[in-house]
């Protein structure tokens, strides 16, 4: 019985697999990662990748990302409701600091079957 799979075939196979795996690793940053949107006055000012722990500020309001969740860490607003709300990680959940007109929304896999738009 002559060979069914030649050496060249096996090399090709391994190359394709390698290319695919590398592609997935490189692309995984933008693809499936959970993101949050920070809005000021209703306009998107920043996209945040929730997979990376970080702290950053937007217009004087301090945000913290930890363990795939985000929260208002510090704010100069009188009521501090935004800070008291704590961490958000549920896709679709959001919170706002009204005096500063800043809001944060968690994106990702929607919990709904479809969206009427």
């Amino acid at each position, binding site marked *: 019985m002559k060979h069914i799979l030649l050496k060249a075939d096996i090399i090709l196979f391994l190359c394709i697999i390698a290319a695919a795996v590398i592609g997935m690793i490189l692309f995984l940053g933008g693809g499936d990662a959970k993101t949050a949107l920070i809005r000021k006055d209703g306009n998107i000012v920043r996209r945040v990748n929730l997979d990376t722990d970080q702290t950053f500020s937007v217009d004087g309001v301090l945000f913290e990302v930890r363990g795939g969740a985000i929260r208002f860490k510090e704010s100069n607003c009188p009521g501090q409701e935004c800070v008291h709300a704590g961490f958000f990680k549920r896709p679709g*959940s959001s919170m706002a600091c009204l005096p500063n007109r800043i809001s944060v929304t968690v*994106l990702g896999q*929607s919990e*709904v*079957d*479809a*969206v*009427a*738009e």
Partner: protein
Amino acid sequence: MATDYNKCMKKIMLALGLVILALAACAPAGTSATYALGTVCSQQVYGGDCGAAIAEVDAMLLRITGEYAINGALTGKISSAAPNPAELTDEAAALIGASLDMAALTGGAFDPTIGPVSVLWDITGNPKVPSRTDVQKALELVDYNNVRIDGNTVSLAKKGMILDLGGIAKGYAADIAAEIYKKHGIKSALLNLGGNIYAFGARKDGKDWRIGIRDPKGQPGEHAAAVAVSDKSVVTSGGYERFFESGGQTYHHIFDPYTGYPAQNGLLAVTVICKNSTMADALSTAFFVMGLDDGLTLANRLDAVEAVFFTDQKEVYITDGLKESIEITNETYTIKS
């Protein structure tokens, strides 16, 4: 003999092909995505004769796209015949009849004769702000009372009148799809015609379909509220869907048939939930034009119709029937009643 073997092989392949085709028609589940009605239309179908149902719905969507577009054969035929009557198919007559019923129900807030205004603003092509005189001229041709329908003939009283069925076509197509699903014994299906949702039956696991309502200030796919429904259509009309900017002002595509200008009444979007998708499609446009007070009053008066109104103050007003079942998913919005 070699030829006997050949013949045998051919027969076997043919039989195999037929068996596979027969099985394909009985597939228990299926999905499909088609480009029709000017957008992406997708179906998820379970139970019954899936393959055939999906194919039939796709074919129907393509057909409806061609027949009822504003610059399509049907509207052209009716317009050029004016003021004389034009002959229609049963389906076209039913569709136009339904649009007139909706106009009467909403006191003209939804008006299928708004064609001249839609064409004037050309919002899907090269949108521009028309002059006041042009708008007035177009408005003279807008009045659903000037349409006479008699069996299978329709006539427009004035020359220059144009029927725009765009505000009702998706809903109508969804209703036809529901009939097709019923005919094929489909148990559960989710039809999404570019955002016009029909939740047929309940989900595969028996629970209600969970349908999100677009956050009018969010990105496509982002929802601000969600409802659990089965055997209902969920349709939203919002200024965010199509608009253009000129001279520092924003103009959207939902025109007020009384003014000829985009309806400006503090609403961002209106969602209607109703088993009849044609009604849901027309009513969502009508309620948007009517504004919060009149729209909400009419919505509460209509049986089997529920509605959600989003104001530009990020308030959400709902009809009484939704008080227990709607869920706000974006906490920057507040429910009011």
